């Protein structure tokens, strides 16, 4: 429908763009992360990404170490890990389990929330806040339950 820009308008465009580029050299960028109000929307989204990186990163690191372990004299088999862990004091055991479970439970429940958004449902301000706090509650409760298993 609209044709490619003519030679004159492209030259005008370039002139305009180069003026803008020169202006931007001196202009500051308005503050963003540091000043934006803490809201459940972007906090949970950021947390989803961070827990995702922690979980997959941890998984890759452990997998790689497990493969390499025989060649560097380490023992990372389940039986060895379980025996070592069993010697820890009870408080530390439960504490460590909660810390490890939290990223997993949060990412799982928030993942379900993300999948419902992909169907274009529950996307309105009230529902987003309600489901957000529900996910936070479920995360903490299930992490503590898993820690006491």
């Amino acid at each position, binding site marked *: 429908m609209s044709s490619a820009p003519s030679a004159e308008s492209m030259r005008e*465009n370039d002139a305009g763009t180069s003026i803008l580029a020169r202006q931007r050299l001196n202009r500051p960028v308005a503050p963003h992360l540091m000043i934006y109000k803490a809201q459940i929307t972007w906090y949970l989204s950021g947390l989803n990404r961070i827990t995702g990186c922690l979980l997959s990163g941890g998984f890759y690191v452990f997998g790689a170490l497990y493969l390499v372990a025989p060649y560097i004299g380490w023992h990372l088999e389940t039986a060895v890990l379980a025996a070592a862990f069993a010697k820890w004091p009870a408080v530390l055991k439960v504490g460590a389990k909660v810390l490890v479970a939290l990223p997993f439970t949060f990412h799982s429940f928030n993942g379900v929330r993300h999948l419902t958004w992909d*169907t274009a449902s529950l996307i309105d301000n009230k529902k987003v806040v309600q489901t957000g706090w529900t996910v936070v509650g479920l995360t903490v409760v299930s992490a503590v339950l898993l820690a006491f298993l």
Partner: protein
Amino acid sequence: MALRLASRRLALASAAAPAPRIFARGMASVLEHTKGEPLSTVSEALSSSTAPTPPSKTTTIKEPEPEKSSKIKTFHIYRWNPDEPSSKPKMQSYTLDLNKTGPMMLDALIRIKNEVDPTLTFRRSCREGICGSCAMNIDGVNTLACLCRIPTETTKESRIYPLPHTYVVKDLVPDLTQFYKQYKSIKPYLQRSTPPPDGREYRQSHEDRRKLDGLYECILCACCSTSCPSYWWNQEEYLGPAVLLQSYRWIADSRDEKTEQRKDALNNSMTLYRCHTILNCSRTCPKGLNPALAIAEIKKSLAFA
């Protein structure tokens, strides 16, 4: 992103011995002005990771006519003067008697400009939330200053910043050139080649017209796009919620015949799919619109062809 741009600049600069092809790879973009040389490879802004000079280190300009029964509230406002480009942005403090000021934030800004500090610069026009000029970040939230009531607790101090992660022209005035170019790029007009059946108007049923409700009311204030962290990091190539809402407005219009072309224009990794459903956009829209829902509908229509 900075690393990509830096290495791309290196690749394009060394024409004699070209760097590996991966550094010179073009970025997916439907914007004509970014094809070839993206704007940010020719210019760099002062980093905003250094915060503006805090209010504790700047002066406080007081209420011009204080009285005993006055309700004095403090405002901290972002200031930067392009006439002194090397000076750092700072937070200037002002105190105002709320009894003498109108109820909205814009009233406070206008009063400061009229009676206290005429150098304070900001955009405004209709003062009723329909033009979109006075969009700014007030107390951490993007909204229209003319629709934002001043919280009357005088113990709390209000902070006013320009729209986040925009280039600042002066004080609270953002550079929205890129935003408008992105809006133009989605062809926000009816595209139709077949004439109307009765030869008079392009008719539309009530049902079809209802599909445009919640889409046509957008005033292009840019509050939503500048609240989106994904738009902060990918402004060059990601269109942002406002422009995507408008592109859905045209996709959903029954009278438009270029639906497939409109959807094809969005079918790459950056233009639409940098949206990660962060949902800051719908939360902040001062007109109560829901860009996130429109974007979800576009993604659905692209997924199920």
